[in-house]
């Protein structure tokens, strides 16, 4: 502890070198913290999104498993449909605790006057059976914003009423009582048909795909898309959700033609695997950054030791032991690394939104919630890591400085 002040003074005496080294470490730490935050945040986000679907198992039309996995979380346009008899067949399975049919269609929006490059001229319409759907998502509530004042759910079979998710209402600038215009090309037709719906409710933000969805009665959705006997998804909650029960359930219903049973655990795995390659690449970048930082620190401290060879010799001449010199150099390395750790952590926290935006642009994330979660544990880990980096990187330069013979060191420094 005696040498802390001395180490700090040495750092302060060479501000440019100290600063550049600290910035180099800070960059490596920021990359590492952001990456770990992304890993954690993405999994949390996937979990939250899937938990908020409200069901554990989906029945879907056979098709691309990635499409199936992402559709419920992120939306999609290449929808496949299954016969509504599937719902009737499955609903009496003794293992089912709750079941809800869902019809999803994609309509073209009209009258919003807003266009962007992300296909947002389309609206996801979700036809639901209100009672069973809400029993699976009891947390769904109406927004308390002024534009949502007077919100209510649509009447069953109402032909012209919709409830809008929070984001879509905000994006379309709609309030309760407004008219929402869409154009749908019904199944088997070539000409689109315009529809107008009255917005009767606006939901509170959920952080899931529901925020970007327009809900309407199941029967109405099937009518306007001219698919009276089809569904997109059957959402199911099992009485007991375990691998064994799920496999048994899958076995029972895999016999149905054109139907696949998808557990949300599978969805999680699929979504995580979607970004695993990107995560691995980013991890590789982080590892490279950390290795570069270690080499940079060792190089800087070695340069510093070399530049201060004379000083080290003098300190030895006036009474410093090898241990004293080792501690001085080692503390200096440690402080440089810790400073870099603190700076990098702060940068990662402040830049989390930017990182999130960049990652969303770079890769298909498949979820709506925040995907970079930098927790206190990650920060603590980063600081411990930076300290470990300092301990490791400082060993060789400190040992080298401590090994200098005083007279030789003084001569070399002259």
């Amino acid at each position, binding site marked *: 502890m005696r040498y802390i002040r*001395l180490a700090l003074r040495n750092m302060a005496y060479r501000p440019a070198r100290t600063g550049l080294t600290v910035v180099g470490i800070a960059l490596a730490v920021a990359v590492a913290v952001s990456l770990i935050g992304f890993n954690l945040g993405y999994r949390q986000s996937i979990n939250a999104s899937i938990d908020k679907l409200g069901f554990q198992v989906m029945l879907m039309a056979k098709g691309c498993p990635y499409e199936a996995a992402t559709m419920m979380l992120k939306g999609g346009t290449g929808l496949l449909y299954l016969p509504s008899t599937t719902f009737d067949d499955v609903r009496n399975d003794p293992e089912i605790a709750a079941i809800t049919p869902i019809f999803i269609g994609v309509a073209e929006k009209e009258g919003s006057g807003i266009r962007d490059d992300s296909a947002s001229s389309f609206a996801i319409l979700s036809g639901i059976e209100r009672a069973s759907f809400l029993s699976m998502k009891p947390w769904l509530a109406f927004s308390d914003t002024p534009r949502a004042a007077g919100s209510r759910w649509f009447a069953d079979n109402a032909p012209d009423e919709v409830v809008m998710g929070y984001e879509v209402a905000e994006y379309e600038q709609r309030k309760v009582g407004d008219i929402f215009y869409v154009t749908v090309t019904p199944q088997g037709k070539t000409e689109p048909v315009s529809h107008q719906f009255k917005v009767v409710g606006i939901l509170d933000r959920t952080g899931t795909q529901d925020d970007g969805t327009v809900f309407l009665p199941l029967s109405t959705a099937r009518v306007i898309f001219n698919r009276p006997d089809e569904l997109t998804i059957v959402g199911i909650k099992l009485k007991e959700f375990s691998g064994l029960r799920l496999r048994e359930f899958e076995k029972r219903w895999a016999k149905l033609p054109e139907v696949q049973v998808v557990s949300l655990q599978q969805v999680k795995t699929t979504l995580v695997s979607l970004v695993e390659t990107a995560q691995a690449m980013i991890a590789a970048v982080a590892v490279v950054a950390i290795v570069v930082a270690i080499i940079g620190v060792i190089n800087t401290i070695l340069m510093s030791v070399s530049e201060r060879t*004379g000083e080290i010799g*003098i*300190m030895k*001449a006036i*009474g*410093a*032991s090898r241990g004293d010199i080792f501690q001085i150099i080692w503390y200096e390395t440690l402080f440089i690394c810790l400073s870099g750790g603190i700076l990098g952590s702060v940068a990662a926290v402040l830049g989390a939104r930017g990182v999130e935006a960049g990652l969303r642009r770079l890769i298909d994330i498949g979820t709506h919630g925040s995907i970079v979660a930098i927790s206190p544990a990650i920060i603590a880990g980063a600081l411990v890591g930076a300290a470990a980096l300092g301990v490791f990187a400082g060993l060789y330069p400190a040992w080298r400085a401590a090994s200098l013979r005083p007279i030789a060191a*003084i001569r070399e420094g002259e």
Partner: protein
Amino acid sequence: MTNHAQRYTSDPVLEAVGLRRSYRRGSETVQALRGVDLTVRPGEMVAILGPSGSGKTTLINLLSCLDAPDGGRLTIAGASVENLSEEELTGVRRGRIGYIFQKFHLLPSLNVAENVELPLLFLERPVDRVKTIEILRQVGLEDRAFHLPGELSGGQMQRVAIARALIVRPGILIADEPTGNLDRANGEAIFALFRKLIESEGLSVIVTTHNQHLGSQADRVITLEDGLITREEPGAAIRPAAGA
């Protein structure tokens, strides 16, 4: 008994017998010291004179335990310094010997007071700023305590180096060409300061110099040539005035 008489009756603070030291220079072995005997008593100031390459600095480095001899015997404050490792030599040096360099060698990142206090840090002794200022007053620099070395003149830096050597209250002050980088006036001032410290602190001082005039102010003047002591005579401080 007079001061001078006391010096010659007390036990020596440093005793070297037959010190030898050689170096490799390429394929050649250079005999820097070829058997030097030297005894220094408490309160004595010994000047070592000699031309460049005569072995002065090598001798000083051995006497201050910064280097180890190849042969011979060295005793400091009654303790034999033979076959010691670098760490053991550091242990002997610490607190017993104050070392002053020709080029001052202050740490540029520390102010004057901190430079002076640095040896206390290594000795794990408490730092007392009042004592530091008192030592700086002894060398006439109490008003420069918080200046950085870069803000001082050469003479002032050398006085800081002396204060740094004094802070641990050593028994022996060893100075290698302390006036080599100073002008005549500053050189005189440094030797006057040594004399004052001998009188006030009872230090023994061993100093190398090229300057015969300054060297002659010591109690004893030793001339080193080609690694051997070729002459030893009393300095002006002891030599009786002509005709006395």
